[in-house]
């Protein structure tokens, strides 16, 4: 499609604005998948762009720019966990990098969380699966989840904790 003789390279960004516009959603989604909440995802996304846009070179290709954003995001996420929980709870790995760097023009679906979640949930016994489904995916309050399951709020709390423990064990086994 390119008929002007500029075949030399991959697409390039004309300026930082286009780097930002093209990647802000991708970076945000990627980080959201690793922290699970908006406040942290917003802060970390801002940190990535503030740190990365200064040293970026205009002559880098779009995939190179994204690879650089990814590296910055990985460092930023590591710093976040060091500060907040003292150990690396989630990491950005090769799969995330491929997702960001190779992603087509329209932002891809948010990470692999939905598939991973489906796998985890499918492996849990019924009450555990139900409470996590209600609390995490259907955004029910503890009270609503308890009512839906016909149990007390106190027991719903215990059940959720056990279910998470079990999900964690599954997650570790699968990791």
């Amino acid at each position: 499609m390119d008929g002007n003789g500029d075949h030399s390279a991959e697409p390039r960004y004309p300026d930082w604005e286009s780097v930002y516009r093209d990647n802000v959603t991708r970076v945000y989604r990627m980080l959201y998948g690793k922290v699970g909440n908006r406040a942290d995802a917003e802060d970390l996304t801002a940190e990535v762009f503030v740190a990365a846009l200064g040293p970026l070179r205009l002559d880098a290709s779009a995939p190179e720019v994204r690879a650089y954003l990814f590296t910055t995001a990985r460092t930023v996420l590591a710093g976040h966990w060091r500060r907040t929980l003292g150990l690396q709870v989630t990491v950005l790995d090769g799969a995330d990098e491929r997702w960001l760097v190779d992603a087509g023009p329209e932002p891809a679906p948010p990470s692999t969380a939905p598939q991973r979640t489906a796998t985890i949930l499918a492996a849990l016994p019924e009450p555990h699966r139900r409470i996590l489904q209600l609390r995490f995916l259907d955004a029910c309050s503890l009270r609503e989840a308890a009512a839906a399951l016909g149990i007390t709020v106190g027991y719903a709390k215990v059940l959720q904790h056990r279910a998470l423990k079990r999900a964690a064990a599954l997650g570790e086994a699968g990791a």
Partner: protein
Amino acid sequence: MSTGRYVRDLLGGRRPRRFRADAAQAAELRAAITLAAARPEAGEPRAEFVEDLHRRLSEQAQQSASASAPTPSAARAPVPIRLGPTRRRVLWAGSVAAGAAAIGATADHLISSHAEPEEQTEAAGQVPTLEPNVGTWQTVAETSDLDVGGVRRFDLGSVVGFVSRDAAGLRAVSGICTHQGCRLNLDPGNRELDCPCHNTSFAVDGTLVRHQLYTPPPPLPHLQVREQDGRIDIYVPV
């Protein structure tokens, strides 16, 4: 039970509070994060956040550009960023105005558009012309280089675009996609300008030919063009 509080915050949409976690707790939190991130509405950045961060980055760009202003005349210039003919290799500098030309916003002290942004989308067929407040005519081609039916790319550093000639005369349009600012490529066979980022194409007169976006991007802004003494000139900001 600090993991419990962390998960409560996560589910309540609050910023989770920090604590010293051990490995078992980290595994639980990892599972909770995976589950929370799989919510259907999760992962969509708020528009206000995206715009606010954009504004902060613009400010940072302007600061770093004025801090590194290379000449006294640039330092005296009334605009925060000098758009010289020499393209900087550093992404920050010189890019805000190019982006503004693409987006039709921010640097209106530098480039004024004949149409307000709302009018651009409202008035069908009405294409804005980007007219710098302070500019110069710069030659982009010889008359003999551009026959009827011809299209040529030009790159003046601060402005990139395409100039074309048809039966009605000369025309110049910005070479920056109005969607997110990627640089357009010329497909001379079809007299089309293709965006490599999201498969959008414009005709050489700036009108939208095809796109795959949720909302159609605006037409390409026109640039002022003139022909004299055998040369084709474009009016660009200094």
